[in-house]
């Protein structure tokens, strides 16, 4: 069964690299890209320009950058954790920041993992591969909560 990955990334170059990395390591899942925090929330909750989407078809994994236009990554995370239906959705922070404050805040808000984007592409694709394998193959996901 193909699963859905939501990549929240505003940098076009990084987006392309991430997609290439997924492709290169043969991740079989569908990847949806949201280019800012507001789009990401609309997608997750099937609101706004994603209003027509089936709200039950949620991504199995969210890869979230922190520095985002409109709504910041931390705010996206906070709202995902605040909604009962997405409270247990796996969210992995994938960012360039290694600021202690950013790491701590992310975990406090309920991030499942925090990964720093490596500069080296080989390293980056290895990371992406490991990520996909861990969250979508080895990890037993929490049962999906159906919204009323």
């Amino acid at each position: 069964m193909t699963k859905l990955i939501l990549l929240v990334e505003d940098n076009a170059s990084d987006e392309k690299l991430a997609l290439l990395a997924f492709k290169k390591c043969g991740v079989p899942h569908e990847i949806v890209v949201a280019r800012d925090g507001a789009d990401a929330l609309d997608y997750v909750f099937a609101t706004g320009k994603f209003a027509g989407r089936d709200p039950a078809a949620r991504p199995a994994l969210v890869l979230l950058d922190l520095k985002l236009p409109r709504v910041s990554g931390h705010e996206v995370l906070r709202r995902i954790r605040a909604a009962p239906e997405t409270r247990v959705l796996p969210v992995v922070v994938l960012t360039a920041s290694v600021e202690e404050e950013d790491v701590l805040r992310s975990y406090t808000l309920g991030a499942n993992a925090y990964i720093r984007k490596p500069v080296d592409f080989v390293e980056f694709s290895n990371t992406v591969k490991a990520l996909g394998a861990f969250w979508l193959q080895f990890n037993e996901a929490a049962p999906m909560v159906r919204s009323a």
Partner: protein
Amino acid sequence: MKQDTVLTAHDRGADAAEQSIAEVLVEQSSDALIALSPEGTVLFWSSGAERIFGYSRRVALGRSLDDLIVPTDRRAEARAALADVVHAGATLLETVRLREDGSRVDVDIAMRAIRDADGGLRFVAVDHTDVSALARLRAARAAETRFRGLLEAAPVAMVIVGDRGRIVLVNGQTEALFGYTRDELLGQPVEVLVPERFRVEHPTHRKGYFHDAVARPMGRGGELFGRRKNGSEFPADINLSPMDSEDGRVVIAAIRDMSERKKAEEKFRALLESAPDAMVIVDARGRIVLVNAQTESMFGYTRQELLGRSVEMLIPDRFSSHSTSDRSGYFSRPVVRAMGTLLDLWGVKKDGTEFPIEMSMAPLDTQDGLLVSSAIRDITERRAIETALKAANHELEAFSYSVAHDLRAPLRGMNGFAQLLLEGYHDQLDAEAQDWLVEILSNARRMGALIDALLALSRVTRVELKREWIDLSSIARASAAQIAASDLPHAAVEFTVAEGLCADADPHLARTVIDNLLGNAWKFTSRAPHARIEVGATDNGEQRTFFVRDNGAGFDMSFVDKLFVPFQRLHTVTEFPGTGIGLASVQRIVHRHGGRIWAEGRIGEGATFYFTFHGSSPGVEP
């Protein structure tokens, strides 16, 4: 042998002219010439006698001389003298007689029995010479001999004054101080030494003192002056002390010239006033003794409102009790405390406004006891600048962090796509094109390393410093183990760490220091045949200096000042890899601890880096 004068018969026949000459001589004599009957009754009373004793001839004639002028305590002596004259014909006597007004007069007396031709005693001629002035001088000289040694040894001018206000004795210092010779002063009223404007009232004070004399400083608290022979005046400190002797009461005045002291005081005041800080001097009870103009303007009180009051009035209430105990502590162990060693101090103005201050304290050992002088600086402005500077620094750090952070994104693109090109189009690229792509990749990687180093450097400045006692020896061993396990190129290293290297420092930052210094040592010994790296410490009395020493590539001492500058390297990247950030970070960490770092080296012979975690600031108490 009888010395009687005998009047012979032919004398009586002497001519009248001779008689009148004798009368004139008798009347003109300054001595008191008196003729007495053998019973002691006055038969003749010269004008001189009138002058010396005050009695007129009319009053004196026919009276007993004893009743007139002989003090009761000298009657026996007088009777003995008279008897002596009657018996021996003449006698000399040095004694005291009374004037009509009751005052005493010193006299030399010559007595002679006058007899007639048949040897009968006709009368006794008595010649009194007033020797009061002489007696005074003589008394003075006697006293002088007695006290001379004592007086001359005194470091101050000593003037001894008799009960009539006459100077009876002075010492050499008096001559030097007032410009008079001894002889010019003896017998003179003491008022010659007093400025004219005080002369009129001086005798009254003097008589009052003689009446109720106790040893005390003269003119309590008042300003006293002496007057020199040339009319000039000087500020004086005068102590009075009565002394009763057989010659009556005298008063000893010790006079000190205060000109120098006054000048010194004026200098001290000028210094105090010119100080840029508010100067407050307090006594052991915390009362304000002296302030300068800066104190008035800083605290808004006038001098009069401050003097004699408790220094607590300048300190906010919430600190008062603390300050009291602090002060008594200070008085029990007074040492100089430099500015900045007393932290978080506040002052309060008259209007209640509180303001941050910096203060230094110094003990003043004065004749009024131990005083403490405090220099107080209003640091409101500096605090504001410091806060602004901190904010600006913070902003700058945040900016550089964000810049470093944002630089990574394009770098990832460059690196990623070059990598993809190299992998995906391997077959279509010739060797040179591939080499160039490798160049792009290695440059991107190096830039990534530089950005990481820059971020690390900025983090070193931003993190909060948390000091604790740490074991630098075990930190060094852990760091060395990690380096040895890493893929840094290195040969076998002989690594030694001194035991028990303790330091009061932030453990994480100290680890960064050690990591960098050991990392460098490993790196620069990578080509040494017998690499040796040593971590140790030297103690020079008060402070401990740590060092990391290696026998590696070393460096040229003429470039030593470039070692700690960010991005400055003394080797090319191909010789030894590196970013040029490590030592800059180390220096920042050491400086943040208040310590110092320096290096010694020689090309090909190795390098030693010395560092401390504490500055040496004298006067700072632990």
